[in-house]
């Protein structure tokens, strides 16, 4: 049977987008799944560090869902300068942390619209549920996103479609509105019941979102970085390597324009070495311990603090003195001994966010 039109599905691999895909396909519509790479995905960061704290390695859920449902999938890399510019100056502002969710959705849906046009598809659909998220999934916001993405009438939310205005594919008979859903709110009971009905057996458990920008500790590091650059007279800018560094290590603000990042694991040490990008690298010369990156131009006091913090997190932390190797980006290497910093209150004051963070 020839398919009834074609749709582009924005798929995360979570329960909602998987159900949306199943609902659209059940109506005989050909589906191409797309998934966006932003650089801020918590799951990807966990994977490159070797897995979760409990030792398990998360799968790429979008790929898993596409494979399980036998759907073509295209990864779309949106992590470039235009996306970062949007994050630095979101038209609709930030959520609770560094998350410009409305602007991000608009950004993604503009790309989805381009893919829809390129593929000759009829509409775009998502797994959004009315009222499920406090800002980006309110009724008025859903309308703004659709309008600003240039998708008016061609953006279908199958899980809440019967609570929203009729779309062009419904009007044109590609989709039967009666076979779409009327879900709203945060409860997922109906989704889980529907998944069982459709024979879907596995989906990731919701874990508070998979985007670093919604994370409180990450948000503190993000804004601290921008403030530090402003203090250094550089202006508020961000690149992809900054994003990688923001997802690794303990971060300490030693002075308005001087920052230290200390690796917590071997995997983070490797990331920091690979993404040093012209910054000084510090490590204990003899004892095992972290690799650290220093951004900015430290004075004598910041140099002492940085070295003492690196000594504090290594195997020599209980010694009177630890030899630190300080490697400048121009190749100059200096070694000197320093007592590990044992003033925990000072460490916590310097830490970003102040008092520490889980990630």
């Amino acid at each position: 049977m020839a398919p009834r039109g074609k749709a582009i599905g924005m798929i995360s691999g979570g329960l909602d987008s998987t159900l949306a895909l199943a609902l659209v396909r059940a109506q005989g519509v050909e589906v191409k799944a797309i998934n966006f790479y932003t650089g801020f995905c918590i799951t990807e960061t966990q994977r490159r560090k070797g897995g979760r704290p409990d030792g398990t390695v998360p799968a790429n859920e979008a790929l898993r869902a596409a494979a399980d449902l036998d759907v073509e999938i295209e990864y779309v890399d949106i992590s470039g300068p235009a996306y970062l510019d949007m994050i630095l100056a979101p038209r609709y502002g930030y959520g609770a942390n560094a998350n410009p969710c409305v602007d991000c959705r608009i950004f993604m849906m503009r790309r989805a619209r381009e893919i829809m046009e390129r593929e000759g598809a009829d509409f775009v659909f998502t797994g959004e549920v009315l009222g499920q998220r406090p800002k980006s999934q309110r009724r008025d916001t859903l309308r703004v996103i659709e309008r600003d993405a240039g998708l008016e009438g061609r953006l279908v939310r199958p899980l809440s479609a019967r609570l929203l205005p009729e779309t062009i594919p419904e009007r044109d008979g590609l989709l039967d509105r009666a076979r779409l859903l009327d879900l709203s709110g945060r409860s997922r009971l109906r989704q889980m019941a529907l998944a069982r009905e459709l024979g879907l057996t596995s989906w990731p458990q919701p874990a508070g979102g998979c985007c670093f920008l919604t994370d409180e500790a990450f948000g503190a590091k993000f804004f601290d970085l921008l403030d530090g650059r402003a203090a250094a007279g550089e202006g508020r800018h961000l690149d992809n390597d900054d994003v990688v560094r923001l997802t690794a290590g303990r971060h300490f603000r030693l002075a308005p324009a001087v920052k230290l990042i200390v690796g917590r694991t071997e995997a983070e040490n490797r990331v920091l070495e690979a993404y040093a990008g012209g910054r000084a690298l510090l490590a204990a010369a003899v004892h095992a311990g972290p690799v650290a990156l220093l951004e900015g131009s430290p004075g004598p006091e910041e140099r002492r603090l940085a070295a003492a913090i690196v000594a504090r997190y290594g195997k020599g932390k209980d010694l009177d003195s630890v030899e630190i190797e300080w490697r400048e980006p121009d190749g100059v290497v200096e070694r000197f001994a320093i007592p590990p910093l044992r003033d925990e209150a000072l460490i916590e004051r310097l830490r970003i966010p102040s008092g520490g963070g889980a990630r």
Partner: protein
Amino acid sequence: MWGPMSPTPPALPAPDRTLDASGLLCPLPILRTAAAVKELAQGAVLLVLATDPGIASDMPLWCRAMRHEHLATFRDGATWKSYVRARGRGAAPAGRP
């Protein structure tokens, strides 16, 4: 399928093309693979080199979704090697209901 935990690789065909995605963080090796495979004739073999361990789970899933043949993904020292046989343009497109 030859999984990442296997100690030695099976006999594998000589690749028609090699893509070096070393240093790229996942899922970027998959993005590069998708672009490279589009240029291959049906049946041609692509060897992907990567350093991000995420490729061990990503590549088999991506191949299954895209109906390419996943021949093997295994670790060789610090590098992951992944062999993919291209589906090519002659096969039925994926995603049909």
